[in-house]
């Protein structure tokens, strides 16, 4: 027990938590924006993979790291556009289209990578983002080490949580977006176009998902590998429910999951006699438990997964 507490008291654990959480924060914000507008986006796993590939490739071809991030966003938005076209104007099944996008995007990432990149014994590397100590703040004991010596995209992710929350709750456009997810008829009655709002929401959300993928190849690691997203997208889909579709809670959910993960990796090394599978399971099991506790009170967007057809009651 004291071992567990000792681990919790180390700054490097909390530093790891933020690092592990970063791709999840991008992904969960992306999924949340889509769903608040009424569209479930199961394309996330594939969009993250494709984002990881194009973000990395841009840097590999000589681009700047931030250009890589931008290209990832753009490509993610293109995939989002495709998903939106199928599910919004055509009103097709959001589940089927989303899974199709995941298959398409991850296969496309794999294919283009093979087409354009010569791979030897080991995948080629780029120079990834380096940790950036925030002047002043990083010298705060414990907190500075844990929070303010992260890689730049992590700061972006944290700022985005605030921006997305502000946008959704404090701007007319955010209100329109939320209303599209609750009652698209009312949006239409206001003279706004629910289809256009949904299409943009899915595109922007998908752009953020791709950013989460790009973090894996330009910050957490320095190479691309076709199967490296490893289910992080699906975790984001669950985290949206956990967060009850709220950005602040989404951040907490991502941090909680990352905490379980960072914690179990450390516990594995010090606790003997417990099968390692139990530790590996921990973040998932605890997420499910948290989901059960929270989901009862979750407020699901009323029109989630319901295609809007003009004039239909």
């Amino acid at each position, binding site marked *: 027990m004291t071992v567990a507490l000792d681990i919790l008291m*180390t700054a*490097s*654990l909390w530093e*790891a938590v933020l*690092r*592990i959480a970063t791709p999840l924060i991008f992904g969960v914000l992306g999924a949340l924006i889509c769903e608040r507008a009424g569209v479930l986006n199961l394309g996330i796993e594939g969009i993250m993979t494709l984002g990881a590939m194009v973000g990395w490739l841009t840097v590999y071809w000589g681009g700047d790291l931030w250009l890589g991030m931008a290209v990832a966003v753009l490509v993610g938005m293109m995939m989002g556009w495709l998903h939106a076209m199928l599910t919004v104007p055509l009103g097709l099944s959001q589940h089927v289209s989303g899974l199709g996008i995941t298959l398409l995007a991850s296969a496309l990432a*794999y294919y283009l990578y093979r087409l354009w990149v010569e*791979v*030897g*014994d*080991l*995948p080629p*590397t780029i120079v990834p983002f380096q940790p950036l100590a925030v002047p002043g703040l990083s010298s705060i004991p414990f907190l500075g080490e844990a929070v303010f010596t992260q890689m730049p995209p992590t700061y972006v992710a944290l700022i985005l949580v605030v921006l997305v929350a502000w946008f959704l709750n404090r701007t007319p456009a955010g209100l329109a977006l939320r209303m599209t997810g609750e009652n698209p008829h009312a949006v239409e009655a206001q003279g706004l176009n629910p289809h256009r709002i949904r299409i943009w929401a899915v595109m922007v959300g998908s752009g953020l998902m791709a950013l989460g993928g790009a973090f*894996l190849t330009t910050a*957490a*690691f*320095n*190479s691309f*590998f*076709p*199967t*490296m997203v*490893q289910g992080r997208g699906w975790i984001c889909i669950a985290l949206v429910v956990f967060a009850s579709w709220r950005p602040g809670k989404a951040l907490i959910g991502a941090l909680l999951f990352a905490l379980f*993960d*960072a914690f179990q*990796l*450390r516990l*594995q*090394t*010090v606790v*003997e*006699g417990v099968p*390692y*599978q139990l530790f*590996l399971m921990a973040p998932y099991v605890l997420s499910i438990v948290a989901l059960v506790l929270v989901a009862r009170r979750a407020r699901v967007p009323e029109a989630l997964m319901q295609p809007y057809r003009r004039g239909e009651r």
Partner: protein
Amino acid sequence: MGAAATLALPAYLRKAQAQTAVKVAGVHASPVENAWNSRIHAALQAAAADGLIEYEFSEGVAATDYPRAMREYAEGGAKLIWGESYAVEAEARAVAADYPETAFLMGSSGGPEGDNFGVFGTRNHEAAYLAGMLAGKMSKTGTFGSVGGYPIPEVNLLINAFRMGVKEVNPEAKFLNGFIGAWFDPAKAKEAALAQIDGGADILFGERIGTADGAQERGVKAIGSLIDYTPRYPGTVFANAIWNYRPTIDAIVADVVAGRPVGRDYTEYSFMKYGGNELIYVAEEVPADAIPAMEEKKAAIAAGTFEVPIDATEPA
């Protein structure tokens, strides 16, 4: 026979020899740059370049698709199908039974079957043991970490061999281990490595890629497995337990050409006496007094007077 020697032959003989190149198909469950697959892929490509085989392959083949890919190559006239049946043991064996004229060589946790289903295990444990002997003399903290994918026998026996090597020169050594539950999640492997460094480890045995990234970030040392990681992590990875797959290929191709049944275990060709695994290390980064004992042990392994024990129990 090398390319130069081939060219020196009369034209009609060259043609005859080209015809004897065995048609080999590889069915890789992972993308070929996955460390384990990359060793096999490279060896098969080299064998093809030498004219020993013709090599075509599929990669990233899902388990559900795996038997179909095997059948397609068998129908397509491949004489030898290389693959990995860990996740599809029953299905792969059923395919082999349907194509008795085709030889199969599968990475497998099970045994060989019939006349045409050969298996092999991964063995670079001897090199890992020797790497452990170097590491044992290098650590300041006396704590040694290791990051593995899943605790399957081939991974366990490798990590255990490393530990035995460490213990031989440093009986007081303490060990940490972490499994990441994935074959390719470098971000997670890196986190596992950092967790162990936080736990006091200053030398890490990286069964998975990503381990050395953690070591590099914190300025501690790491050991690579299967492939040579030193060029990618200079100053961090000081030794690598290299796996050479070519002896295995040469052995089964010889069997196929001679018409001998291949339903046997080809694991032995990964052992050091066949050149199936080797230690490469950066001598300048290793304490000079660590090397003679290790070299002595290496000679003993080669001479057959010492056998690195195989312990497949899960390392804690």
